[in-house]
C-alpha cells in the first residue's frame, strides 16, 4: 500500500505518481465504457457487515468478495459516477499543485460541483473512502485529511516529529507536554513521525477524556510504566495507526479500556479487528493483539458498579454484535449474553464510587494482573 514491491516505504514522488495514476484509472474505466457504447459503471467491494471476512494472514477483518456496482443506468448511480469524476479531478489537481485539504474543505469545495455536489459531508467522506477501496490507496495519498480530533498520548517515550520547516524535533511524552498530553497529528507515517527511547511496557488506550485525565493525574503512566492513549470516542485513523505502530515496531501490548456498553465494544473492535467502514485498510490500522480490559459486564457485578438500564437501542446494538463476525468468539458471546441478561451498563468513571484512586490502586492492577500484563 504505502510500500513498494520490495516492502520499502514509497517516496513522496512515487506516492504522488501513484495517486495520479489511480485517478486516471477511474476516469479510464468510465471512458472505456462510454467508448464501447455501454452504460458506464464502477465496481467496488460492498462495504457492509455481511461482506467482511477474517484475513488469516493479517489476523484482521477485511472486505470479502461481495461487490457493489455503481451504474449510470439509474439516476442515483449516475450522480455517484459524476461525483466520483469530480472528486478524482479535484484530487488530481491537488496532487499536481502540491496542495492538500481537509475532508470538510473538500465538502465545501464540492458545493461548486454543480450536479455533482453532495447532500451532506458524510456523503463526500464516504466517497473518499470508496476511492481508497477502488484504488487500494490511502486517502492521505489523495491529499485528503481529517480534522484534528485532539487524541493524545502520554508516557515515558519520545516521538521525533518532522516540523513545518522540515527539521526534526524530539518530544518526550511526559517531560515536554502539559496535562493534555502529546497531541497525535493526523499523519503518523514514518516520514512524519518516529518513536525513540520507548521505555514503557505496554499501552492503555482509553475511551473517555475524563478517565485519561484521571490516570494521568494519578501518575498511572509512571507507576505502571505504561503509555496512555486517549481514543476520544471512536478513534481516528491516525490514533489507530499510532497504536498499531507502537504494537508492531516497539512490541508493546495494547490494552483497551472503555465504558461497559455496546458502543464501547465497537471501539475496541475497530482498534483490534478493523472497522467495517475501513475494512479495506484493516491490516494497516488494526492491532489484532489488542486486548479488552473493561468495563466488562462481569465487572459490573464483580465490582458492584453503579449502572444504568440498557435502552432499547443498546439491546438492539448488543444483539447486532452477536451477529457480527468480529465478536464471534466465546469470551465476547458470553459477556454480551450476560449483559443482555443483566440489562445494565456502566461507565468507566463509575469506578469513582470507591474513591478517585480506586481505579489506579485496585481496579487496573487487578485486571492487568489477571490478563498477565502485570505481575
Amino acid at each position, binding site marked *: 500500500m504505502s510500500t513498494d514491491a520490495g516492502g520499502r516505504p514509497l517516496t513522496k514522488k512515487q506516492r504522488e505518481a501513484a495517486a495520479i495514476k489511480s*485517478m*486516471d484509472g477511474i*476516469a*479510464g474505466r*468510465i*471512458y472505456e465504457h*462510454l*467508448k464501447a*457504447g*455501454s*452504460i*458506464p459503471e464502477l465496481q467496488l467491494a460492498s462495504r457492509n457487515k455481511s461482506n467482511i471476512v477474517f484475513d488469516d494472514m493479517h489476523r484482521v477483518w477485511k472486505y470479502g468478495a461481495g461487490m457493489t456496482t455503481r451504474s*449510470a*443506468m*439509474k*439516476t442515483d448511480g*449516475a*450522480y455517484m*459516477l*459524476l461525483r466520483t*469524476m*469530480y472528486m*478524482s*479531478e479535484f484530487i*488530481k489537481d491537488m496532487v499536481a499543485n502540491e496542495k492538500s485539504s481537509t475532508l470538510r474543505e473538500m465538502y465545501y469545495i464540492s458545493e461548486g460541483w*454543480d*450536479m*455533482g455536489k453532495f447532500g451532506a459531508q458524510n456523503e463526500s467522506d464516504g466517497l473518499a473512502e470508496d476511492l481508497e477501496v477502488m484504488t487500494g490507496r490511502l486517502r492521505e495519498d489523495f491529499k485528503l485529511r481529517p480534522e484534528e480530533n485532539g487524541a493524545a498520548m502520554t508516557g515515558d517515550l519520545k516521538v521525533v516529529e518532522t516540523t513545518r520547516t522540515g527539521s526534526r524535533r524530539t518530544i518526550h511524552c511526559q517531560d515536554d507536554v502539559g496535562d493534555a498530553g502529546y497531541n497525535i497529528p493526523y499523519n503518523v507515517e514514518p516520514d512524519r513521525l518516529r518513536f525513540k527511547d520507548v521505555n514503557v511496557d505496554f499501552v492503555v488506550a482509553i475511551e473517555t477524556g475524563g478517565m485519561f485525565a484521571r490516570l494521568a493525574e494519578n501518575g498511572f503512566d509512571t507507576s505502571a510504566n505504561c503509555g496512555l492513549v486517549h481514543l476520544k470516542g471512536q478513534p481516528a485513523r491516525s490514533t489507530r495507526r499510532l497504536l498499531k505502530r507502537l504494537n508492531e515496531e516497539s512490541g508493546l501490548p495494547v490494552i483497551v479500556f472503555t465504558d461497559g456498553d455496546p458502543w464501547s465494544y465497537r471501539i475496541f473492535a475497530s482498534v483490534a479487528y478493523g472497522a467495517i467502514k475501513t475494512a479495506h485498510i484493516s491490516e494497516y490500522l488494526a492491532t489484532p493483539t489488542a486486548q479488552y480490559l473493561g468495563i466488562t459486564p462481569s465487572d459490573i457485578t464483580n465490582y458492584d458498579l453503579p449502572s444504568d438500564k440498557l435502552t432499547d437501542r443498546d439491546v438492539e446494538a448488543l444483539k447486532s454484535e452477536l451477529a457480527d463476525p468480529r465478536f464471534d468468539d466465546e469470551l465476547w458471546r458470553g459477556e454480551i449474553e450476560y449483559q443482555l441478561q443483566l440489562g445494565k451498563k456502566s461507565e468507566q468513571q463509575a469506578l469513582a464510587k470507591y474513591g478517585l484512586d480506586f481505579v489506579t490502586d485496585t481496579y487496573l492492577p487487578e485486571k492487568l494482573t489477571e490478563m498477565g500484563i502485570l505481575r
Partner: protein
Amino acid sequence: MAAIAEELAKGQKEISVAEFFERNRQILGFDSPTKALITSVKEAVDNALDACEEANILPDIAVSVSPTEHDGEYTLVIEDNGPGVVKKQMPNIFARLLYGSRFHAIRQSRGQQGIGISAVVLYGQITTGHHAFVTSKIGHGKPAVRMELAIDTKTNQPKTFSTELDHWEKPHGTRIEVVLKARYQGGKQSVFEYLRSTSIVNPHAKITFTDPTGQAFVFDRASDEVPPKTEAIKPHPLGTELGTILKMAKHSEYRKMTTFLQKEFSSVGADTAKKLLAEAKVENVAPGDLTRDEARRLHAAFGKVKIMAPPTDCLAPIGETLVRRGLKKETEDVSPEYIATVTRPPSVWGGHPFQVEVGVVYGGTLPRDGQVRILRFANRVPLLYQQGGCEGTLGVQAVDWRRYGLEQRGGKGTPVGPAIILVHVASTKVPFTSEAKEAIAPMEEIHKEIKLALQDAARGLGRHLKKKAKRAKVSEKFDLVTKILPEINKKASTMLRKPEVDLAPIVCKIMDVVWIDDVSAEYAKLEGATLAPKAAPLPVPTSAAGGLTLEAFDGDPVEAPAEVPGVPAEPVKPKQAYLGKGTLTITNYKQKAQGFKLYAVLPDNAVFVEAEPAPRKVAERYLLWDVPKMEPAAKAEIRFDVAGVGKGDLDGLDLYVEGINEINVVGADPWHGGEE
C-alpha cells in the same frame, strides 16, 4: 260557536303575495343581508342572460355594488345590453310579483316563477324605503324610458312614481338600480364568486363587476356563440299533476279527448291516446266536461300505459368544449394541468327532460390537502347554498374517486385533492329542494346521470395522471441522459485529454422508449376574411355538406340569429377565431428502429388546415400519421395547423399510438378506436 266564528271572521282577510313575502323572505333566498345581496344580483343577472339569449344577443352585463351614506345599505346597479322591455310592461315586470312570460312555458330557462326581479325591488323597498329606478331601451332611434317604481304590498300592484324619457348611447338594454340592506363579503359565497361561476357556464357572456371599493373585474367571454334559443315543449303526461290535467282540460280548445291528449301533451300519439282513454275508462267525454273522477283515472293511466319519453331537443347544454373553455378561463389563476369535460346525452326524470354536464379541473396551485371544490349549476345558474343536500354534491360523493387518482376516505364522500368539480343540470324542470332554488333535490335518474358523467370525466383524469407518472419516471432518466451523462463524458475526457464520446447508443440503452413530447402550440387570431383559402370552409354551415373537413363537428347547425324587432341581427361570426399551429416532437430512444401510427385527437369544431408531413388520414375527430421507421436516437417533428380552435385547445392534445407496444412509448396511449 257561531258568535265566536263571527268574531274571528273580523280578523280574517286576504294576505297579498307581497305581504306574504314581506314576512317570509327566507323562502326566496333573502334571509340574511349577505344572502339577500347575492340573490338580488342573481335574479337580475338571470333575467339579463335569459333576455339576451331569447334575442340572440351576446350579453354584456355590468354589475356594481356601491356603499351608500348609510351603514349596511348598498346601491346595486345591473345593466345589460338585452332587448329591453316595452314601456307598458315595465311596471308589471319590475314591480309586480308573479308576473312574467316564462311561468307557463315548459322550457329550459334560468328564471321561471316571475318572482325574481320584483322580489328584489320589494326587498329594497322594505329594507330601505327606497324605490327602484328602471331604465330600458328597446332599439335604435327609440328613447330610453326611466321609471321610479315600487310595489303596493297590499294589492301586489305596481306603483309608478315617475316616468321620464332619457337619452342612452347603447342601442338597447335594461338597467335597474335598487338600494337595499345588505352586507358585502368575500369568500366562496360572494357576489364575486357568483359572477365568476356564472361566467364559467355562460362563456358567451361578458360580465363586468365593480365592487364596493370601486375596483372593477371583467369576466370576459370565452365564446362568441349565443346558446341556441330553447324551445318550449308541451307537458309530458308523466310530469303532470291531477289539478293541471283538470285545468288543461277545462281550458282546452279541442272537443275530443283523443285530440286534447295528442295536441296538448308531448309524446302522445293517436295510438297512445286511445290506450290511455281505454285504460282510464274515459269515453265520449268532451275535455271541458271531464269530471274530477275521470281525471283521476286518466292520471292513473298515465303511469300504466307506456308513453314515449319527452322530446329532449328542447335542451341547450353548454357543450364539452365550451365548459372546458369557461373553466380554463376562470381557473387561469391556478394554472391547472388538466381539464376534462363531459356532456351526457339527454335523459328524463318524471316526464321532464334533463341533461347533465360535468367538468373536472386538476392540478396547478389548487390546494392538495383540502376537499375538492364542487361548483353546482342548474340551467346555467350557480348554486351557492345548501351544498350538503344537493344532488350535485351527492353525485360527486357517490363516485369512487380513489380509482382515478384523488383521495377519498373509504371511497365515499367528498374527495380530497387539487381539483374543482363542476356539475351542471339542465332541464325544463329542475327539481329544486325549495323555492329559493338553492339545491337540486335528490332524484334517482339525475343521480345516475351525474355519476356516469363524473366517472367518464374521472377516467380521463385517471389516464392523465397515469401518463404523467410514467412521464415523470422516464423524465428522470431524461435528465440523466441529457445532463448527467454528458457531464460524466466531459469530465472523463478532460481528465484523460481524449475526445468526448458519442453518447447516442448509451442514451438509447438507458431510455429505452419512444418519447413523444406534449403538443406545443401557437395561436394566431383569425378574422373570417383572413382565413387561408384552405381554412375558408370554417363558417360554412353543415347544410353545405362537403368533404369531412367542411363540416362543423359538433353537429349543431350554425343558425342565423332570429330577428329581434328593432335589433339589428348580429353578423354570423366564425365559431372560434384562432388558427392553432401545433408541433409534435418524437424521439426514438429505443435501440432499434421504430415505426408506428400516431393519432392526434382534435378538439371539437377544429378544422384541419395542413400538416408537414401530410397525415395519412384526416378524419372527423382525429389526424393519423404513419411515422416511418425511425433509427435509434433519431428525432422527428410533425407540424400541423388547425383552424377553428380556441386559445389553448391544442395544448396537451390527446395522442394515441398503434403498431407499437405501449410500454415502449411515453406521451401517448394505445389507440383502441379503430379507424373511423
